[in-house]
């Protein structure tokens, strides 16, 4: 070998290659672990949010409200599947900001007994949650309205008195009926105003841009205001699946208690409701009228079913 040539023995070359390989493996492993940690945190937060919604189940209250503060900037993805199982699925996926970047949402947490009405992605650190029972004609579930504290909803126009009373009673920071700040989302009950969301209360229609969402009752009206059309329609289908099962449950109960001389005479009406809820295709008008009729009959019955 000539003087001045680089003298690297075979063992050195081998050690360098092996070192690079081991270092690469270690960096890859740490990266994977960090990804797993993010997924785990997202899943835990999602499950935690779902669990914290349990106390929002209402007894004889007309509504409940709570707020949720997460230390990091968070995105809550609301996914609804109305064709999974008997009751469909509510999926919550969480993504948190770390080092200025949003983590890719991977897996979420599924709930079958929750109905969250919100935008598809709700972003912020503080979230407001408000729940209200949905009765059709019996209690079907508590609907949960999830909003970020960053968005302020300003209700104006000819708001019905009971809605004003309810909104002020809730004392939720981002729902206002007066002293609305600029950049708030205008929810109007009169057509002559400039609105982001227009509520035609008597016709049961909420207009958002070019979209029209049909509702029946105050509970579904709030759902239409706070959620995206896709989420609303999907959750409404899931609610009808539950109406179907509850109709069947009450029908069976009516048969069961009639053996002890307790008659309600609602079996045939409940069978019609079960069938209508099972074949629900978005037309709330006829099924709401049927529910109203059944409610009146139950109120008058000798043995009330609910």
């Amino acid at each position, binding site marked *: 070998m000539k003087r001045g040539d680089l003298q690297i023995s075979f*063992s050195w070359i081998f050690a360098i290659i092996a070192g690079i390989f081991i270092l690469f493996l270690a960096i890859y492993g740490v990266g994977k672990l960090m990804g797993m940690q993010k997924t785990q945190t997202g899943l835990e937060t999602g499950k935690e949010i779902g669990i914290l919604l349990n106390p929002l189940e209402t007894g004889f209250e007309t509504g409940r409200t709570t707020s949720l503060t997460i230390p990091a900037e968070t995105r809550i993805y609301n996914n609804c599947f109305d064709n999974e199982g008997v009751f469909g699925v509510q999926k919550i996926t969480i993504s948190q900001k770390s080092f200025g970047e949003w983590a890719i949402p991977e897996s979420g947490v599924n709930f079958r007994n929750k109905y969250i009405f919100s935008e598809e992605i709700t972003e912020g650190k503080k979230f407001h949650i408000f729940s209200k029972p949905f009765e059709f004609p019996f209690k079907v579930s508590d609907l949960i309205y999830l909003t970020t504290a960053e968005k302020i909803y300003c209700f104006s126009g000819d708001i019905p008195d009971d809605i004003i009373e309810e909104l002020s009673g809730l004392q939720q920071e981002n729902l206002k009926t007066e002293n609305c700040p600029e950049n708030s989302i205008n929810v109007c009950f009169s057509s002559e105003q400039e609105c982001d969301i227009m509520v035609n209360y008597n016709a049961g229609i909420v207009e958002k841009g070019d979209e029209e969402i049909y509702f029946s009752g105050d509970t579904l009206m709030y759902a239409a205001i706070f959620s995206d059309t896709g989420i609303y329609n999907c959750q409404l289908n899931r609610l009808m699946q*539950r109406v179907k099962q509850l109709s069947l*449950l009450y029908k069976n109960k009516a048969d*069961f208690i009639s053996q002890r*001389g307790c008659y309600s005479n609602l079996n045939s009406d409940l069978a019609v409701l079960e069938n209508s809820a099972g074949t629900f295709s978005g037309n709330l008008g006829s099924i709401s009228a049927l529910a109203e009729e059944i409610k009146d009959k139950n109120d008058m019955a000798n043995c009330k079913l609910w």
Partner: protein
Amino acid sequence: MVKKKIKAKKVKVNLNKKAQLKIQQMAFMLMAVIIFFVLVGMFVLTIRFSGLKKSATLLEEENAMLLVSKLADSPEFSCGESFGTRKANCIDADKAMMLKESIEKYSGFWGVSNIEIRKIYPKSQSEIICDRLNYPNCNIIRLISGEVSGVGVSNFVSLCRKESSEGYNYDKCELAKLVVSYEEK
């Protein structure tokens, strides 16, 4: 000359043997290093997953505890206004019996492994699981059949049903415990 050639050959053979030995040493060393890293990785993963199991169990426990306090007000159990005015923490026993018969549809619905309603007052001597034949002369409405596993959390509720005597209907309410069980991970 021949002697010199033989000597050079011997030196070459010795060098080859030395190089082979070094490669072997390096290979063994490398295997040891890789095995070491694999072991460290497995150790880290074991610790992480044991923590994951613990937090999963904690979340299950939290779910069961919060659920049990509110489950009686859910539509599948609640009395509503069928026993007079609307009551909180009141379970309609007749409805719960019907729910028991269609419980397979509710699989995974509340995210707990079992739900049981145990009548505690008036007290009875033996434990009788309710079915259509012995109802209401029984004291446990178990919503899933078979033995209950896991950890149970409970809450006191009123358990009401419709009764009739001599052609008259009346409401009968008793004291019960609603037990929600969850599986430890």
